[in-house]
């Protein structure tokens, strides 16, 4: 079984062009008929920030310093993670026409979703910078580690996106399950709370959650001006690449049957 032509289609320039045009398409589609346009992508985290701030700071009176910055530094990466997985579950099914196109590299689809969500995340970063400045926090040299953390999160999200997208083709309720799991998972992740105070056996267990590890890293860089702990991040990078490769294998093996099942 060989297909020489596929190898040819996978040249880097071609993949780059396809990624670019599809991400651009995502953006055009999302903001085509909305007055607020790109501002929508900022509105969601800001609304979430406002609600959480009122609930946890004013009502429950959490005593985390720089709480607005703390919250936003958790909310933004979490939204990127969450919306990537929810959208990528639909990506194959919604693009069935593309999937059936001759020569279309199906494997780019989950990546396209995660990429366009990442652009939303990056577009929201200036807002975070404003809040940091208001809280009196100044950027330090630790900022150079930020792209690395973003890269690890990207790898992790893409690898999970492949698995979710594959499942959705076979089981059409995957997207709802993913939504429920993410909701439950968000409570186990320190988005609005801080678990640096919890006792040791639990702390290690909680840190097994990759998103907890990532959020801690973001906050170390942005709030504390420190380099993130290298060990958990490195472990996460290794784990992500392992999940990524297995996610890719699952996806590629199922790919040839997508056409039949759509």
């Amino acid at each position, binding site marked *: *079984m*060989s*297909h*020489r*032509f*596929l190898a*040819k*289609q996978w040249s880097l*320039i*071609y993949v780059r*062009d*396809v990624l*670019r*045009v*599809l991400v651009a*398409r995502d953006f*055009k*589609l999302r903001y*085509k*008929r909305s007055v607020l346009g790109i501002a929508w992508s900022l509105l969601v985290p800001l609304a979430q920030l406002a609600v959480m701030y009122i609930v946890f700071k004013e009502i429950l009176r959490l005593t985390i310093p720089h709480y607005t910055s703390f919250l936003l530094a958790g909310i933004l990466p979490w939204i990127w993670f969450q919306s990537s997985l929810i959208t990528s579950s639909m990506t194959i099914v919604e*693009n069935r*026409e*593309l*999937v*059936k*196109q*001759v*020569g*279309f590299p199906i494997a780019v689809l989950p990546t396209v979703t995660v990429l366009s969500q990442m652009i939303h995340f990056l577009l929201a970063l200036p807002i975070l910078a404003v809040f940091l400045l208001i809280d009196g926090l100044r950027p330090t040299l630790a900022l150079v580690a930020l792209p690395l953390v973003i890269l690890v999160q990207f790898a992790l999200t893409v690898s999970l996106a492949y698995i979710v997208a594959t*499942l959705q083709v*076979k*089981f*059409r*309720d*995957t997207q709802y*399950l993913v939504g429920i799991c993410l909701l439950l998972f968000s409570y186990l992740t320190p988005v609005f709370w801080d678990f640096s105070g919890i006792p040791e056996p639990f702390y290690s267990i909680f840190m097994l959650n990759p998103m907890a590890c990532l959020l801690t890293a973001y906050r170390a860089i942005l709030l504390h001006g420190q380099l993130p702990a290298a060990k958990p991040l490195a472990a996460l990078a290794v784990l992500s690449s392992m999940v990524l490769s297995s996610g890719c294998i699952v996806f590629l093996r199922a790919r*040839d*049957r997508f*056409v*039949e099942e759509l």
Partner: protein
Amino acid sequence: MRDAVVVQDLGKRFRRYRADRPSTIHETLLRGFWKLAPTEYFWGLKDVNFRIAPGRMVAVVGRNGAGKSTLLRLIGGVGRPDKGSIQVCGRVRGLLTLGAGFHPELTGRENLFVNAIIGGLTHREVEARLETIVAFSELEEYIDSPLRVYSSGMQMRLAFSIAIHSDPDILMIDEVLAVGDLAFQRKCLDRIEQVKASGCTIIVVSHDAGMARELCDEALWLRAGRLEAQGPCSGVIDKYLADAGTISWSHLPVANTTPAAVPEQHPKEELRDELHKFEITGVRVLGVDDSANRKIDSGSPLSIEISFVARRLIEVLNFSVAIRRPDGVSCCDMSTQGSPSTPYGVHGEGSILLHIERLDLGGGLYDIEVCAYGEELSPRFGFWQSASSIAVRSDGSNSGLWRVPHHWETRQPVEAPRASSVAGVVSR
């Protein structure tokens, strides 16, 4: 020179699932994982071997479900063969589905970019060709409107323009040409000729035998997933058309069927109270050179014999015979009504013969429809929608629905007079 497409021992196996196969995780947990497994497998394509030399135009013919579209998809790398291999040399573009990956909310121009880049052009190449593509599709006025306002014909024009302007080495077209209007179809065919002349290999699926004969060099005939024949276009298509006739035959009443056996085998549209009054018991085509294939040369005489039994006295009995193309277009409809040969006072078994002096139809497959009725067209006593079929053979010099009796006359230039200055070529 290397072959453009080499298909070796190709097999594609499809899975058939139970009707209550769970499609969600929820159902799977409730009903059990074992219901996920396919109940049976069948080969959509099997043992297919062929090569296509570069620059050839190949027609793929075969009945519905013979595996034509599956074959094209596999060549295009959509899905994977379960057996054997496909080697393709060069860039493949296909017009296999009408939607072609267009998004209704995006404008024609935006869709054009997405589609052309996926098809293998770089961003710069698309920009350079944008004008040409839009001009060819004749959509200048609409190119910045969202695609949802386009008609299906307009979408097809855009998709075709993109595909044909993206320098494919191999272009595959699945029946979609039928969508555009005639003028655009003509333009497409001209453009296909040009692209072909520049060395592009073209594979088309077509049910239009005339078009296939006109354009293609070779044909592949698929029957039930197997390659039945490959070779020069006319020969393969003739074989296919003749075979299509025999397949119909097996579904249809055989001329010498006993009347009692007919009702179970051949459901007919009849009026309930007239059910036992009258029955068409057989339809036979006479004058065909081979009764199994029922081939007939265009322009030769043909007779159709309708046998019937009237179990009660029928005052006025009219018959009509229509010859239809497979797509339902009526080529001629002949009736006894008003003619001196209308049978009156019929009772018992009998038969009526229709003699056609010249069957001047173009080459192809035709269905014969037989109807028996009283004074008015309704109620009908009996109606056989495809009572029989014939395969009309026409020489290569003629295509189209009707083979008009004609001849050509050549006039020599006056400067060089010859003994016989007028040569007449008379077509039979």
